[in-house]
Protein backbone atom coordinates (compact mmCIF):
# COMPACT_ATOMS: atom_id res chain seq x y z
CA UNK A 1 0.00 0.00 0.00
CA UNK A 2 1.21 3.45 -0.83
CA UNK A 3 0.39 4.77 2.63
CA UNK A 4 3.95 3.67 3.37
CA UNK A 5 5.31 5.94 0.65
CA UNK A 6 3.07 8.75 1.86
CA UNK A 7 4.34 8.29 5.41
CA UNK A 8 7.89 8.41 4.17
CA UNK A 9 7.05 11.71 2.49
CA UNK A 10 5.42 12.94 5.69
CA UNK A 11 8.39 12.01 7.89
CA UNK A 12 10.78 13.53 5.36
CA UNK A 13 8.83 16.79 5.54
CA UNK A 14 9.00 16.67 9.33
CA UNK A 15 12.75 16.11 9.25
CA UNK A 16 13.16 19.02 6.83
CA UNK A 17 11.11 21.21 9.15
CA UNK A 18 13.24 20.15 12.12
CA UNK A 19 16.40 21.02 10.19
CA UNK A 20 15.23 24.41 8.99
CA UNK A 21 13.42 25.51 12.14
CA UNK A 22 15.86 23.95 14.56
CA UNK A 23 13.89 21.69 16.86
CA UNK A 24 15.09 18.36 18.18
CA UNK A 25 11.96 16.38 18.85
CA UNK A 26 8.41 16.19 17.56
CA UNK A 27 5.76 15.08 20.02
CA UNK A 28 2.64 15.29 17.90
CA UNK A 29 1.58 15.88 14.33
CA UNK A 30 -1.84 17.09 13.17
CA UNK A 31 -2.65 15.85 9.71
CA UNK A 32 -5.72 16.90 7.78
CA UNK A 33 -7.11 14.13 5.61
CA UNK A 34 -10.06 14.76 3.36
CA UNK A 35 -12.78 12.18 2.84
CA UNK A 36 -11.91 12.11 -0.88
CA UNK A 37 -8.13 11.84 -0.45
CA UNK A 38 -6.52 8.72 -1.86
CA UNK A 39 -5.44 7.51 1.55
CA UNK A 40 -6.80 5.42 4.42
CA UNK A 41 -6.34 7.20 7.78
CA UNK A 42 -5.88 3.96 9.77
CA UNK A 43 -3.15 2.78 7.43
CA UNK A 44 -1.43 6.16 7.82
CA UNK A 45 -1.37 5.85 11.60
CA UNK A 46 -0.04 2.31 11.40
CA UNK A 47 2.72 3.14 8.90
CA UNK A 48 3.65 6.41 10.56
CA UNK A 49 4.73 4.68 13.73
CA UNK A 50 7.05 2.40 11.77
CA UNK A 51 8.49 5.02 9.44
CA UNK A 52 9.05 7.53 12.24
CA UNK A 53 11.36 5.21 14.18
CA UNK A 54 14.85 6.64 14.45
CA UNK A 55 13.76 10.10 13.29
CA UNK A 56 12.81 13.37 15.02
CA UNK A 57 9.25 12.11 14.94
CA UNK A 58 9.88 8.85 16.78
CA UNK A 59 6.99 8.10 19.15
CA UNK A 60 5.14 11.19 17.97
CA UNK A 61 1.36 11.06 18.17
CA UNK A 62 -0.38 11.32 14.81
CA UNK A 63 -3.66 13.19 15.11
CA UNK A 64 -5.84 12.88 12.04
CA UNK A 65 -8.24 15.73 11.41
CA UNK A 66 -10.94 14.42 9.09
CA UNK A 67 -12.28 16.88 6.54
CA UNK A 68 -15.68 16.25 5.01
CA UNK A 69 -16.12 16.14 1.26
CA UNK A 70 -17.91 19.06 -0.33
CA UNK A 71 -18.87 19.58 -3.95
CA UNK A 72 -20.66 22.09 -6.14
CA UNK A 73 -23.73 20.58 -7.75
CA UNK A 74 -24.16 22.11 -11.21
CA UNK A 75 -27.79 21.08 -11.20
CA UNK A 76 -28.75 22.58 -7.82
CA UNK A 77 -26.24 25.45 -8.13
CA UNK A 78 -25.28 24.99 -4.53
CA UNK A 79 -22.57 23.27 -2.53
CA UNK A 80 -23.50 19.87 -1.14
CA UNK A 81 -21.82 17.34 1.16
CA UNK A 82 -20.37 14.17 -0.42
CA UNK A 83 -18.87 11.27 1.48
CA UNK A 84 -17.21 9.32 -1.34
CA UNK A 85 -16.10 9.70 -4.91
CA UNK A 86 -18.85 8.39 -7.20
CA UNK A 87 -21.72 9.44 -4.93
CA UNK A 88 -24.35 11.64 -6.45
CA UNK A 89 -25.76 14.91 -5.16
CA UNK A 90 -27.73 14.12 -1.97
CA UNK A 91 -30.46 16.50 -3.07
CA UNK A 92 -31.02 15.79 -6.76
CA UNK A 93 -28.94 12.69 -7.45
CA UNK A 94 -26.89 14.31 -10.23
CA UNK A 95 -23.26 13.28 -10.77
CA UNK A 96 -22.36 16.65 -12.29
CA UNK A 97 -20.34 17.59 -9.22
CA UNK A 98 -17.24 19.72 -8.87
CA UNK A 99 -15.27 18.88 -5.74
CA UNK A 100 -14.68 21.91 -3.52
CA UNK A 101 -13.14 20.36 -0.43
CA UNK A 102 -12.08 17.01 1.01
CA UNK A 103 -9.14 16.03 -1.23
CA UNK A 104 -6.36 17.27 1.05
CA UNK A 105 -3.57 15.41 2.87
CA UNK A 106 -1.94 18.27 4.70
CA UNK A 107 0.21 18.78 7.78
CA UNK A 108 -1.49 21.49 9.85
CA UNK A 109 0.65 21.83 12.93
CA UNK A 110 3.25 20.02 14.98
CA UNK A 111 4.11 20.03 18.66
CA UNK A 112 7.85 20.31 19.10
CA UNK A 113 10.60 20.90 21.57
Amino acid at each position, binding site marked *: *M*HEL*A*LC*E*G*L*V*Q*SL*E*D*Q*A*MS*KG*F*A*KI*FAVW*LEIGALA*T*VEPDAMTFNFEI*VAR*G*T*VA*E*DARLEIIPVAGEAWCMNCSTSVPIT*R*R*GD*GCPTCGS*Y*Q*LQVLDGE*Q*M*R*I*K*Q*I*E*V*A
Partner: protein
Amino acid sequence: MCSICGCGEHDTLEHDDHHHDHPHDRAPLHAHAAGMPATRMVQIEQDIMAKNQRYADANRRFFASQNLFVVNLVSSPGSGKTSLLVKTVEALKSEMRVAVIEGDQQTGLDAARIQATGVPAWQINTGKGCHLDAHAVGHAMEHLPEIQNGVLFIENVGNLVCPAGFDLGEAHKVVVLSTTEGEDKPLKYPDMFHAADLMILNKSDLLAYVDFSVAKAEAYAQQVHPGITSFTLSARSGDGLEAWYGWLRAGVARVTMQR
Protein backbone atom coordinates in the same frame (compact mmCIF):
# COMPACT_ATOMS: atom_id res chain seq x y z
CA MET B 1 18.13 6.49 2.86
CA CYS B 2 16.18 9.33 1.37
CA SER B 3 12.62 8.13 0.94
CA ILE B 4 11.96 10.04 -2.23
CA CYS B 5 15.26 9.37 -3.95
CA GLY B 6 15.98 5.66 -3.93
CA CYS B 7 19.01 6.18 -6.13
CA GLY B 8 20.95 8.78 -4.18
CA GLU B 9 23.51 10.13 -6.65
CA HIS B 10 22.87 11.68 -10.02
CA ASP B 11 20.63 14.54 -9.02
CA THR B 12 19.64 16.58 -12.00
CA LEU B 13 16.14 17.91 -11.62
CA GLU B 14 15.23 19.85 -8.54
CA HIS B 15 17.28 18.36 -5.81
CA ASP B 16 17.87 21.42 -3.71
CA ASP B 17 15.49 20.02 -1.13
CA HIS B 18 17.34 16.75 -0.80
CA HIS B 19 19.33 16.01 2.30
CA HIS B 20 20.89 12.65 1.76
CA ASP B 21 23.38 12.75 4.54
CA HIS B 22 21.68 14.83 7.13
CA PRO B 23 22.24 13.70 10.67
CA HIS B 24 19.13 12.45 12.37
CA ASP B 25 18.88 14.71 15.32
CA ARG B 26 17.78 12.21 17.90
CA ALA B 27 16.89 13.65 21.24
CA PRO B 28 16.91 11.24 24.14
CA LEU B 29 13.35 10.12 24.73
CA HIS B 30 12.98 11.36 28.27
CA ALA B 31 15.09 14.46 28.06
CA HIS B 32 12.23 16.52 29.40
CA ALA B 33 11.29 14.17 32.22
CA ALA B 34 12.74 16.42 34.92
CA GLY B 35 10.23 19.22 34.42
CA MET B 36 7.39 20.14 32.15
CA PRO B 37 8.24 19.39 28.57
CA ALA B 38 8.83 22.79 27.06
CA THR B 39 6.91 22.07 23.90
CA ARG B 40 5.45 24.54 21.49
CA MET B 41 3.12 24.41 18.53
CA VAL B 42 4.35 25.15 15.03
CA GLN B 43 1.80 25.85 12.28
CA ILE B 44 2.84 24.33 8.98
CA GLU B 45 0.27 23.94 6.17
CA GLN B 46 2.18 21.54 3.98
CA ASP B 47 0.74 18.99 1.60
CA ILE B 48 2.37 15.61 2.21
CA MET B 49 2.52 15.13 -1.55
CA ALA B 50 4.48 18.38 -1.86
CA LYS B 51 7.72 16.63 -2.74
CA ASN B 52 6.27 14.50 -5.49
CA GLN B 53 4.48 17.60 -6.74
CA ARG B 54 7.74 19.54 -7.01
CA TYR B 55 9.27 16.79 -9.13
CA ALA B 56 6.10 16.51 -11.20
CA ASP B 57 6.13 20.26 -11.84
CA ALA B 58 9.80 20.06 -12.89
CA ASN B 59 9.00 17.18 -15.25
CA ARG B 60 6.07 19.11 -16.70
CA ARG B 61 8.28 22.14 -17.37
CA PHE B 62 10.86 19.90 -19.04
CA PHE B 63 8.24 18.15 -21.19
CA ALA B 64 6.86 21.53 -22.26
CA SER B 65 10.33 22.72 -23.22
CA GLN B 66 10.72 19.66 -25.46
CA ASN B 67 7.19 19.92 -26.94
CA LEU B 68 6.40 16.47 -25.62
CA PHE B 69 2.84 15.22 -25.20
CA VAL B 70 3.07 12.90 -22.21
CA VAL B 71 0.55 10.19 -21.44
CA ASN B 72 0.52 8.17 -18.20
CA LEU B 73 -1.14 4.79 -18.81
CA VAL B 74 -2.72 3.24 -15.74
CA SER B 75 -4.69 0.03 -15.25
CA SER B 76 -4.83 -3.22 -13.35
CA PRO B 77 -2.18 -5.79 -14.38
CA GLY B 78 -2.76 -7.39 -17.75
CA SER B 79 -5.36 -5.01 -19.23
CA GLY B 80 -3.21 -4.77 -22.35
CA LYS B 81 -1.22 -1.56 -21.85
CA THR B 82 1.98 -2.89 -23.41
CA SER B 83 0.11 -4.62 -26.24
CA LEU B 84 -1.64 -1.32 -27.01
CA LEU B 85 1.65 0.57 -26.85
CA VAL B 86 3.41 -1.86 -29.19
CA LYS B 87 0.63 -1.38 -31.76
CA THR B 88 0.58 2.37 -31.22
CA VAL B 89 4.29 3.03 -31.54
CA GLU B 90 4.41 0.86 -34.68
CA ALA B 91 1.66 2.99 -36.18
CA LEU B 92 2.95 6.40 -35.17
CA LYS B 93 6.73 6.13 -35.21
CA SER B 94 7.02 7.16 -38.85
CA GLU B 95 5.05 10.39 -38.34
CA MET B 96 6.30 11.61 -34.95
CA ARG B 97 9.00 11.09 -32.35
CA VAL B 98 8.01 8.46 -29.79
CA ALA B 99 9.56 7.16 -26.58
CA VAL B 100 8.31 4.96 -23.77
CA ILE B 101 9.00 4.62 -20.06
CA GLU B 102 7.91 1.28 -18.62
CA GLY B 103 7.15 0.73 -14.95
CA ASP B 104 6.92 -2.71 -13.36
CA GLN B 105 7.94 -4.10 -10.00
CA GLN B 106 10.36 -6.47 -11.72
CA THR B 107 11.75 -7.49 -15.12
CA GLY B 108 12.64 -5.58 -18.25
CA LEU B 109 10.15 -7.54 -20.34
CA ASP B 110 7.86 -4.67 -21.29
CA ALA B 111 10.68 -2.31 -22.29
CA ALA B 112 12.11 -5.11 -24.43
CA ARG B 113 8.75 -5.49 -26.21
CA ILE B 114 8.81 -1.78 -27.08
CA GLN B 115 12.49 -1.78 -28.06
CA ALA B 116 11.77 -4.60 -30.51
CA THR B 117 9.80 -2.04 -32.55
CA GLY B 118 12.86 0.20 -32.77
CA VAL B 119 11.38 2.83 -30.45
CA PRO B 120 13.50 3.90 -27.45
CA ALA B 121 12.23 2.59 -24.12
CA TRP B 122 13.50 2.65 -20.57
CA GLN B 123 12.38 0.28 -17.84
CA ILE B 124 11.90 1.42 -14.25
CA ASN B 125 11.72 -1.40 -11.72
CA THR B 126 9.97 -0.24 -8.58
CA GLY B 127 10.89 -3.31 -6.51
CA LYS B 128 8.32 -3.37 -3.72
CA GLY B 129 6.87 -0.06 -4.89
CA CYS B 130 3.34 -0.19 -6.23
CA HIS B 131 3.43 2.94 -8.41
CA LEU B 132 5.76 5.25 -10.30
CA ASP B 133 6.60 8.60 -8.76
CA ALA B 134 7.66 11.82 -10.44
CA HIS B 135 11.22 11.58 -9.22
CA ALA B 136 11.81 8.17 -10.81
CA VAL B 137 10.34 9.44 -14.08
CA GLY B 138 12.65 12.46 -14.06
CA HIS B 139 15.65 10.14 -13.76
CA ALA B 140 14.32 7.81 -16.45
CA MET B 141 14.47 10.72 -18.89
CA GLU B 142 18.25 10.75 -18.50
CA HIS B 143 18.35 7.30 -20.08
CA LEU B 144 16.25 8.09 -23.12
CA PRO B 145 17.61 9.88 -26.18
CA GLU B 146 16.53 13.52 -26.42
CA ILE B 147 13.28 13.67 -28.25
CA GLN B 148 11.23 16.69 -29.24
CA ASN B 149 7.87 17.32 -30.89
CA GLY B 150 6.33 13.97 -30.16
CA VAL B 151 4.79 11.72 -27.61
CA LEU B 152 6.18 10.09 -24.48
CA PHE B 153 4.22 7.18 -23.06
CA ILE B 154 4.66 6.24 -19.43
CA GLU B 155 3.25 2.79 -18.64
CA ASN B 156 2.60 2.74 -14.91
CA VAL B 157 2.78 -0.27 -12.62
CA GLY B 158 -0.33 -2.43 -13.04
CA ASN B 159 -2.42 -1.27 -10.08
CA LEU B 160 -5.78 0.49 -10.07
CA VAL B 161 -5.18 2.13 -6.71
CA CYS B 162 -1.90 3.89 -5.95
CA PRO B 163 -0.89 5.43 -9.29
CA ALA B 164 -4.02 7.61 -9.08
CA GLY B 165 -2.41 9.70 -6.36
CA PHE B 166 0.92 10.38 -8.05
CA ASP B 167 1.30 13.12 -10.63
CA LEU B 168 4.25 12.32 -12.91
CA GLY B 169 4.08 15.56 -14.88
CA GLU B 170 1.93 14.02 -17.61
CA ALA B 171 -0.61 15.85 -19.74
CA HIS B 172 -3.19 13.13 -19.12
CA LYS B 173 -3.67 9.92 -17.25
CA VAL B 174 -5.28 7.33 -19.50
CA VAL B 175 -6.95 4.39 -17.78
CA VAL B 176 -7.15 1.09 -19.66
CA LEU B 177 -9.92 -1.30 -18.64
CA SER B 178 -10.25 -4.62 -20.42
CA THR B 179 -13.51 -6.39 -21.08
CA THR B 180 -12.52 -9.39 -18.96
CA GLU B 181 -12.29 -7.30 -15.79
CA GLY B 182 -15.97 -6.40 -15.38
CA GLU B 183 -17.76 -3.16 -16.08
CA ASP B 184 -18.06 -2.20 -12.41
CA LYS B 185 -14.41 -1.14 -12.05
CA PRO B 186 -15.04 2.62 -12.32
CA LEU B 187 -17.29 2.39 -9.27
CA LYS B 188 -14.93 0.10 -7.34
CA TYR B 189 -11.81 2.16 -8.06
CA PRO B 190 -13.29 5.65 -8.40
CA ASP B 191 -10.07 7.53 -7.62
CA MET B 192 -8.37 6.16 -10.72
CA PHE B 193 -11.26 6.82 -13.07
CA HIS B 194 -11.57 10.28 -11.58
CA ALA B 195 -7.88 10.99 -12.15
CA ALA B 196 -7.92 9.81 -15.78
CA ASP B 197 -9.12 12.01 -18.63
CA LEU B 198 -9.54 9.16 -21.09
CA MET B 199 -10.82 5.63 -20.56
CA ILE B 200 -9.85 2.92 -23.03
CA LEU B 201 -12.00 -0.20 -23.03
CA ASN B 202 -9.59 -2.79 -24.44
CA LYS B 203 -10.06 -6.37 -25.67
CA SER B 204 -13.25 -5.53 -27.55
CA ASP B 205 -12.58 -8.69 -29.57
CA LEU B 206 -13.65 -10.63 -26.46
CA LEU B 207 -16.99 -8.84 -26.01
CA ALA B 208 -18.82 -11.77 -27.59
CA TYR B 209 -17.47 -14.12 -24.91
CA VAL B 210 -17.81 -12.11 -21.72
CA ASP B 211 -20.68 -10.36 -19.97
CA PHE B 212 -19.31 -6.87 -20.22
CA SER B 213 -21.56 -3.95 -20.99
CA VAL B 214 -19.70 -1.09 -22.65
CA ALA B 215 -22.68 1.19 -22.00
CA LYS B 216 -22.62 0.41 -18.28
CA ALA B 217 -18.85 0.84 -17.99
CA GLU B 218 -19.20 4.23 -19.66
CA ALA B 219 -22.09 5.27 -17.45
CA TYR B 220 -20.15 4.30 -14.31
CA ALA B 221 -17.11 6.21 -15.52
CA GLN B 222 -19.29 9.28 -16.15
CA GLN B 223 -20.61 8.92 -12.62
CA VAL B 224 -17.16 9.27 -11.03
CA HIS B 225 -15.79 11.58 -13.73
CA PRO B 226 -18.40 13.63 -15.59
CA GLY B 227 -17.20 14.33 -19.11
CA ILE B 228 -14.52 11.59 -19.32
CA THR B 229 -13.79 10.51 -22.90
CA SER B 230 -14.03 6.81 -23.75
CA PHE B 231 -12.81 4.66 -26.65
CA THR B 232 -13.55 0.99 -27.17
CA LEU B 233 -10.86 -0.88 -29.06
CA SER B 234 -8.87 -4.07 -29.43
CA ALA B 235 -5.09 -3.96 -29.25
CA ARG B 236 -5.20 -7.46 -30.69
CA SER B 237 -7.38 -7.02 -33.78
CA GLY B 238 -6.67 -3.33 -34.26
CA ASP B 239 -10.38 -2.45 -34.16
CA GLY B 240 -11.05 1.08 -32.95
CA LEU B 241 -7.42 2.15 -32.80
CA GLU B 242 -7.93 5.10 -35.16
CA ALA B 243 -9.89 7.09 -32.57
CA TRP B 244 -7.03 6.63 -30.09
CA TYR B 245 -4.44 7.65 -32.67
CA GLY B 246 -6.55 10.70 -33.49
CA TRP B 247 -6.64 11.67 -29.82
CA LEU B 248 -2.84 11.32 -29.64
CA ARG B 249 -2.24 13.31 -32.83
CA ALA B 250 -4.44 16.11 -31.51
CA GLY B 251 -2.50 16.14 -28.25
CA VAL B 252 0.86 16.29 -30.01
CA ALA B 253 -0.42 19.04 -32.31
CA ARG B 254 -1.49 21.05 -29.27
CA VAL B 255 1.89 20.92 -27.54
CA THR B 256 3.88 21.60 -30.69
CA MET B 257 1.67 24.53 -31.70
CA GLN B 258 2.07 26.24 -28.35
CA ARG B 259 5.59 27.17 -29.39
